[in-house]
């Protein structure tokens, strides 16, 4: 369902290709698709309407700069407006500081606190954590377990009911550390007493950063919640959590707009290492469910996966095990195959779902098996007979079944890539490539 969105956006963009005059109908269609994509990503409805209006007027009124095609012109405007919508990353300096975490119940404050501790620790700072969540049972145990694993000191007392007292006692106790992170209990805007509590905590702690933790799935409610948190403790950064699900995090954008701050970090996994600095371009791609828009705009078509995977050879049908090996290597660095494929300028090609279902551990196994193959075997897997398979399996410490499975996977990928060419003929394909190259 979500992938289709990206496709329809691409289709809309394609309609603008080769036009000399900006076509009102095409722009309107593009804007409509954009609206759908953004609303499905939980971006505030009013913000979406403003954005689409701006894109429409600018596309139709601004003259395309010399040498720029109509499509590039519109694409650039879309990109600029989206960048404006998403904003820049919030600041997070590597220096001694106190950070106060705030957010709704279940948004992931405690997990994120541990992740942040890990982040600053890895950057070489001494980190301490104060558990000011005196309400939720198990909160201290949770934080303590997570932090003990990475040798980060935790101050807290599960028996104490007064969060202010904990913060008051915790700050001097943490005087030996450079970065102090205060985890607080979940609260929402309508809980007056709790809002007052966090105001009081801030008064005691005088935290340099007050970061609001927002669940990627939070919907239109985000704006209102962020506004009231902002009124209370002047939020200066937003952290989006649970980006490893399918939610797109558009709700966080309303929070950014309300607090006039930026997104600082993105949490995307259950371990303490799954925290990334915010990066606007990747976020935009995700919002729209399409490949890297910036890469398209900058005409840098051969960046990213291009060097790792020889797209041209693949499309010529010369997809050998070597290409697959390169692909698997790339996977390690760049994340799931699906993401890579969406970055490649392959248009709307359909890759069977099975191809994506290969897990990362399997990928690792495949690479080991391929390491046991000879050059000719990698170049032309058709020479592979049962005795070769046996030899490879022995060499890789795998079973012949696994080697056969790898070959099946290879065939599937090859077939999928062939399917792209199929029907249209070689020349068409090359033309298509050119077209995408210009995107």
């Amino acid at each position, binding site marked *: 369902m979500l992938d289709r969105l990206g496709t329809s956006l691409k289709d809309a963009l394609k309609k603008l290709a080769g036009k000399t005059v900006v076509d009102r109908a095409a722009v309107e269609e593009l804007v409509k698709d954009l609206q759908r994509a953004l609303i499905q990503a939980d971006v505030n*409805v009013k913000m979406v309407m403003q954005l689409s209006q701006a894109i429409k007027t600018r596309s139709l009124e601004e003259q395309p700069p010399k040498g720029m095609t109509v499509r590039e012109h519109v694409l650039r405007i879309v990109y600029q407006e989206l960048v404006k919508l998403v904003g820049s990353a919030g600041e997070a300096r590597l220096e001694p500081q106190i950070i106060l975490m705030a957010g709704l119940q279940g948004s992931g404050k*405690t997990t994120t606190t541990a992740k942040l501790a890990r982040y600053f620790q890895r950057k070489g700072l001494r980190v301490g954590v104060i558990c000011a969540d005196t309400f939720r049972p*198990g909160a201290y145990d949770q934080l303590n377990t997570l932090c003990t694993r990475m040798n980060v000191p935790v101050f807290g007392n599960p028996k104490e009911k007064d969060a202010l007292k904990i913060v008051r006692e915790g700050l001097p106790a943490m005087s030996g550390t450079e970065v102090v992170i205060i985890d607080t209990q979940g609260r929402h805007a309508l809980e007056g007493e709790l809002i007052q509590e966090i105001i009081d905590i801030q008064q005691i702690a005088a935290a340099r950063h007050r970061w609001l933790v927002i669940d990627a799935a939070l919907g239109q409610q985000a704006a209102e919640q962020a506004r009231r948190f902002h009124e209370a403790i002047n939020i200066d950064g937003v952290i989006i959590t649970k980006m490893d699900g399918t939610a797109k995090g558009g709700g966080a954008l309303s929070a950014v707009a309300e607090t006039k701050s930026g997104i600082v970090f993105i949490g995307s996994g259950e371990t303490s290492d799954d925290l990334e600095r915010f990066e606007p371009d990747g976020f935009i791609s995700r919002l729209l469910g399409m490949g890297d828009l910036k890469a398209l705009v900058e005409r840098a078509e051969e960046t990213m996966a291009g060097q790792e995977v020889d797209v041209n050879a693949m499309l010529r049908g010369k997809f050998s095990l070597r290409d697959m090996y390169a692909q698997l290597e790339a996977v390690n660095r760049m994340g799931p195959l699906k993401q890579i494929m969406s970055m490649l300028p392959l248009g709307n090609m359909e890759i069977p779902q099975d191809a994506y279902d290969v897990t990362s551990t399997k990928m690792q196994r495949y690479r080991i098996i391929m390491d046991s193959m000879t050059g000719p075997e990698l170049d032309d897997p058709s020479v592979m007979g049962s005795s070769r398979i046996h030899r490879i399996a022995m060499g890789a410490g795998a079973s012949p079944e696994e080697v056969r499975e790898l070959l099946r996977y290879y065939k599937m990928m090859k077939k999928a890539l062939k399917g792209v060419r199929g029907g249209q003929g070689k020349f068409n394909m090359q033309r298509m490539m050119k077209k995408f190259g210009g995107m």
Partner: protein
Amino acid sequence: MFEGLRARLQKVQGTLENNIARTASPAGIASPPMEKAGSASEKDPTLLTRVKVLITDREFLIAEKDVEEPLFELEMVLLENDVALPVTEEILRRVKADLTGKRRKIGESVDDIVISALRGALLGVLGQGFDLLSYIQSHERPVKILFTGVNGTGKTTTVAKVASYLKKHGCSVVIGAGDTFRAGALEQIDVHAARLGIKVIQHQAGADPSAVLFDAVQYAEAHRIDAVLADTAGRFHNRANLMKQLEKIRRVMRPDLVVYVDEAVAGNDAVVRAYEFEKTVGADAVVLTKADMDAKGGAAISIAHTIGKPVMFLGVGQGYDDIVPFSPAQVVDELLGVGS
């Protein structure tokens, strides 16, 4: 939680009524002679039909364009209140189908037509409620209830609340601590259970949740307990292995009810994950948490529509009593401002 949605819905309802009333009145006053209607009909057949209907049946016909603008407004209202896009479209389709082409008798209140159309559409997506107590009474005990959902939606808190609710209504309860993954989860459920005076079956952290929950069921059978509430670790629907683990849990403990827990503040993703959970492990009922967060309530509508399963409870606060059974008819009437 539905206050915001209610106010806006009532506004749209007003616009719809005005538009329909407006289109009706000029025709009513003019009451044109037959020849005039005939000449106009060549250009505009709808007018002829309208007049015909008016004269022969003393009724008005509601045309599509009369409702177009208020419907757009309705769409915005629903979207702003977190009703997911596909669900919004479905509701609009229903209201439209219900209203356009409809004949309205003179004297019949516009109000009633509009309300019944909206009410029908909303009830259509919200479905029926779910009465847990009567379910437990009418089934063989122990009734095994498995709670699922993504991370941080409030499964553990909900398990504690439901346990307290059942206990208060005279059912004996045992909790299975199936969240063996998250740090602090076992301590959390322990404290809840101790406060409520309810037995928890648990193994150590990192244990196989299926085994824990199997033991919980065994315990309940041996002690003639009415209900087993099985907590599980939060998991994302796109994690194949975690979803498989959940499938295994279901195979091993054979729950009578699978309850899907999600938060009322969730946006469009609510639909995606509800669908995926329903697809892999099924869901018999839904609990919506955090409904006290000034939530717009759209998630209730989205989820109920996507998986076609009733909403059983709303979580409305941090206390054990902050849980209320969900009754769709009442909510819809409240939204539209009819009834009490």
